[in-house]
């Protein structure tokens, strides 16, 4: 199974992103002109005017988005072309044949009774080693030996955790790996991204302080080497966040920071808007593209549907997590670029490398509404069609 997955790794995994409806990619102008042309028999000249039929365009476009829009579908797991014997990815559940059901039953048995206990044992070992190891290293005096030990303890524990999930990872272009004093940005699909990247390099983590088991792990990790953990209250204060990140980045002895600028988990078929905060700091940015192959197990974490523990259990009962990681060449902000343009440039590079759709929409749309400025764009375009530019109008 591992060999088979490795062979597939060398090409890009093509996402199955067919929408559920057939759409024509024409612009507002073209479509309205076509509607008018099909409706009236008079010769179509370019005088701006209004027709009763114009409403059809907006009406249909609106209905199309209700049936299927680019953003909402990014927040649910990707559909597969062919079934991989996991009932969770079975979209149109139908009884097909006895043989398939038997195969599926066998699969369940193997996954739950054989793979799951093994993986849980490994995960347990990995996490406890991490906590114990980093605490022990924390007692050493600061110096090169401590740094050396902490790096290796971290690395070893992440590698064990990777094995616990049976993650089969192919790293490309490892010469571009992030260096000290830089910021590593990547697209975000699940919390596992962190483990995948950290098992191949040394990073300083950034995140909110959690309670419970996560909190214990966080406190232990920060004893061994400096990570950047924020209190819940501090997260709202953008200047404070920027200041702490800048301080960390300017200290060349500290490890590169790992950040996911989308701010939320997306289902790995597209890359959404990057928040500009990390791009304002002025450090070198090392983009990384992570693409999962959903054939063996979907890694997307739908946080509104599953909690963390349920999610991890689902991960450990999939066949495997297969992914590719591309390290892209480092980028810096040009003098005539602002943070938003820089963020978009990095985002396009990551989307292109990973074969993902580059979207302008904000990942925050998972929870909030969109701004009115976009609607005004549409209104402007349409007004031009019915009244033309002000200079053109000779009679009112």
């Amino acid at each position, binding site marked *: 199974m591992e060999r088979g997955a490795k062979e597939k790794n060398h090409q890009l995994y093509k996402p199955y992103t067919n929408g559920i409806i057939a759409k024509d990619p024409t612009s507002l102008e073209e479509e309205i002109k076509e509607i008018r042309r099909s*409706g009236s028999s008079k010769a179509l000249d370019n005088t701006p005017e209004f027709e*009763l039929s114009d409403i059809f365009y907006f*009406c*249909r*476009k609106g209905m199309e988005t209700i049936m299927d829009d680019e953003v909402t579908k990014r927040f649910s797991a990707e559909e597969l072309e062919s079934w991989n014997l996991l009932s969770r990815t079975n979209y149109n559940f139908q009884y097909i044949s006895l043989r398939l059901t038997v195969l599926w039953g066998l699969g369940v048995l193997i996954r739950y009774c054989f793979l799951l206990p093994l993986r849980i044992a490994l995960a347990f070992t990995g996490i406890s080693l991490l906590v114990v190891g980093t605490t022990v290293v924390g007692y050493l005096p600061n110096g090169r030996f401590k740094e050396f030990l902490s790096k290796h303890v971290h690395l070893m524990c992440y590698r064990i955790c990777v094995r616990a999930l049976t993650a089969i990872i192919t790293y490309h272009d490892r010469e571009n790996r992030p260096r000290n004093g830089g910021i590593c940005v990547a697209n975000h699909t699940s919390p596992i991204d962190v483990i995948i990247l950290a098992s191949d390099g040394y990073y300083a983590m950034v995140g909110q302080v959690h309670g419970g088991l996560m909190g214990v792990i966080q406190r232990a990790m920060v004893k061994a080497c400096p990570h950047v953990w924020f209190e819940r209250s501090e997260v709202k204060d953008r200047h404070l966040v920027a200041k702490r990140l800048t301080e960390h980045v300017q200290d060349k002895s500290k490890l590169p920071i790992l950040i996911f600028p989308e701010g939320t988990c997306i289902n790995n078929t597209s890359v959404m808007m990057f928040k500009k905060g990390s791009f304002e700091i002025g450090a070198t940015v090392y983009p990384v593209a992570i693409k999962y192959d959903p054939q063996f197990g979907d890694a997307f974490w739908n946080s509104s549907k599953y909690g963390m523990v349920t999610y991890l259990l689902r991960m450990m009962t999939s066949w495997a997590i297969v992914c590719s990681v591309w390290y892209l060449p480092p980028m810096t902000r040009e003098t005539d670029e602002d943070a938003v343009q820089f963020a978009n440039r990095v985002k396009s590079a990551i989307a292109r490398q990973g074969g993902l759709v580059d979207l302008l929409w904000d990942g925050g749309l998972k929870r909030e509404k969109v701004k009115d400025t976009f609607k005004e764009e549409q209104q*402007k375009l*349409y007004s031009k069609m019915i009244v033309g530019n002000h200079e053109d*109008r000779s009679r009112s």
Partner: protein
Amino acid sequence: MGSRSSHAAVIPDVDTIRRETGFSQASLLRLHHRFRALDRDKKGYLSRMDLQQIGALAVNPLGDCIIDSFFPSRSQRLDFSGFVRVLAHFRPVEEESPGIRDPKQPEPLNSRMNKLRFAFQLYDLDGDGLISRQEMLQVLRLMVGVQVTEEQLESIADRTVQEADEDGDGAVSFLEFTKSLEKMNIEQKMSIRILK
């Protein structure tokens, strides 16, 4: 273990819906999946807010009118059958020879007449069966926002109502509406094809 995916038995009254809307089983399953994806709080029905959160719909100038067409007569809840009934207007018209259809059956929701009636209702804001000059003005204002002056808009509304109005009552009735659009290929322009 995982989530139960949508099964035909989960959709209530699936046979009635299928008969009324003419959607295939597969299309209904997809629409039901979509309905559940839009229903973020898992209430079992959709509210106006759920539809307003679709980004691409919020930027559509007629977005609110379209949402209103799903919620007739001041109800605040949209269940699946209501959802599908509205969408059924946009089902592509099948190629069938005339005369085979049983005249006693009600007209299918996606017929030319019903598609026109749906568009007419978008204009006819108070639902009295007539598009008055005022209503025309309001809809136009929605479509252009602040880009056009009041006078320009008024002259456009006047002209449009005059052109379509035949019996001179100063408003456009449904028959006048259909007459002015009789050459339009409604079947194609108001259809959305669902891929298997």
